[in-house]
């Protein structure tokens, strides 16, 4: 479904944001993209959307080299990729239904298709009763559900989620993850960039870790962090020292004495 072949991307005069990345994501996979801020997760997603073009290497989506795509075909690529963001990006002056319908309207879907698909997807995300609400009348979790509905309403091949739980409390995050998991079970590939240790560890899905643009880990059923990656993922600052700072941290396992990744310490502050 998605393939990166030796992809390198750097922004003007800086160290590469992505450095010689090669990986393949199969149809129907659920992949976590982890790494500290500035590790290249967002660049990874931007390249997939062709909001940016790699300096070298090629990216394949659904059997197509998207670097070869002419400018006017890019929108058609994006119709196959549903996007969810940390900040929801809903239109504040439209109702829930209108927000979701907007995604279909602007790609020229006929009215009757829009009506049925929007109703279906709102039911799927559990907002069937709240179609007439405005976004500001909804909780953060509900807003994110609307965003997921909008991303999924056109039945894309892939859902790209850039820290979708970044603004949500753990319980609400769980709900969003369940939703993404359900969507994944329909055969939709999900690629999710996240900092949320707890989520990664409980879901036990494929984990791809980036560090300063390099692919440092690709694990089939991974957790957020490993002792061996400790120095790497915290840029030389001993990760143990950071544990308890409120950051998604690491903790020494009292029984083995090894440093291991633990759940995020949200709520303990």
């Amino acid at each position, binding site marked *: 479904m998605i393939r990166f072949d030796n992809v390198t991307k750097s922004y003007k005069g800086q160290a590469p944001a992505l450095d010689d990345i090669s990986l393949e994501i199969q149809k129907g996979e659920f992949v976590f993209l982890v790494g500290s801020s500035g590790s290249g997760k967002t660049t990874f997603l931007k390249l997939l959307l062709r909001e940016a073009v790699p300096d070298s290497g090629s990216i394949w989506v659904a059997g197509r080299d998207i670097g070869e795509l002419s400018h006017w075909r890019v*929108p058609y*690529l994006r*119709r196959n990729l549903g*996007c969810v963001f940390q900040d929801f990006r809903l239109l504040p002056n439209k109702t829930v239904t209108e927000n979701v319908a907007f995604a279909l*309207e602007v*790609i020229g879907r006929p009215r009757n298709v829009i009506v049925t698909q929007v109703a279906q997807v709102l039911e799927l995300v559990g907002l069937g009763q709240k179609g007439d609400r405005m976004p500001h009348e909804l909780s953060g979790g509900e807003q994110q559900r609307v965003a997921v509905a909008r991303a999924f309403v*056109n039945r894309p091949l892939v859902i790209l989620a850039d820290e979708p739980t970044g603004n949500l409390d753990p319980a609400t995050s769980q709900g969003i993850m369940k939703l993404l998991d359900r969507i994944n079970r329909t055969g939709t590939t999900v690629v999710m960039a996240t900092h949320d240790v707890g989520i990664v560890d409980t879901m036990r899905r494929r984990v791809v870790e980036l560090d300063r643009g390099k692919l440092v880990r690709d694990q089939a059923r991974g957790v957020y962090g490993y002792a061996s990656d400790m120095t790497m993922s915290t840029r030389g600052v001993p990760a143990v020292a950071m544990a308890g700072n409120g950051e998604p941290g690491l903790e020494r396992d009292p029984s083995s004495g090894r440093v291991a990744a633990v759940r995020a310490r949200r709520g303990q502050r």
Partner: protein
Amino acid sequence: MAVSFDYVAKETATNLWRNRMMALAAVLTVAVSLSLVGTALLLRQAVNRQIGQWNNNVSLQIFMDASASGGQIANVRSTIAQTPQITHCSYLDHQHSYEQAKRLLASSPTAIEALTPATTPTVFRCQLRNPSEASTVSATFNSGVPGVYQATSPSQSIRVMQQVTNVLQIILLVIAIVLLVSSLVLILNAIRMAIFARRREVGVMKLVGATNWFIRVPFMLEGLVQGLLGAIVAALIVLLSNFGVSYLIRHYKVSVLGSAVLPTHDIVMTELLVVLIGLVVGVAGSSVAVRRFLDV
């Protein structure tokens, strides 16, 4: 590309309404500048027609006596041929000259009745190498050449008037161009603000894969509508002022200005040109805005 008409019309209308103050400013500037353009164009046509009629588009006319003999005419013809200042001459015989007189005197039927083809003087209509030599050349023909009734050249006052209207036209056009440029900038700015006001929508549209043209068209159309509205207002102003002027000329029977009343064809063409310029300004302004501020 599936851009539904409903969607585009709705978007354009809401955009215009949301941005109505900016849109109004743009529309009014277009209207004012295009009224000036239209007025300048009509003035030019009216003045040219009128002066052309007064002059017969020639710089020298030599009227023969109605009873001039063929020999006298031939004599004048050869004198003309020997006058180096004259570049070109045509001769109107009785019949043509009579018809010409009828046209000129259309507003005073009694004067026409007094004329018959036989009593209408024949005339040589000449063009001069240099119109300022008209008085010296006409003087040579007025100094008793047999058969010549009178040689006339457009009077100094007509030439002064022509120059004044030329200057007036240039001033009007310069003001109009300055205003056109400012209306283009105003439209550009209005569209830029519309794009800014809708940046969230535009972001979402790009994200879910709306085509570039689908995103652009409502903004382009908004500029086009502003240009068009301004142009229509301008066309009405021009039309009304033209009606006003021609009404005054007819009402007070100012027959010397009879030709300043423009035929419908000329007015329609000018109005079309005004509307066309309005459309171009609207589309140009919004294209620049879309290109610069809407990176899709």
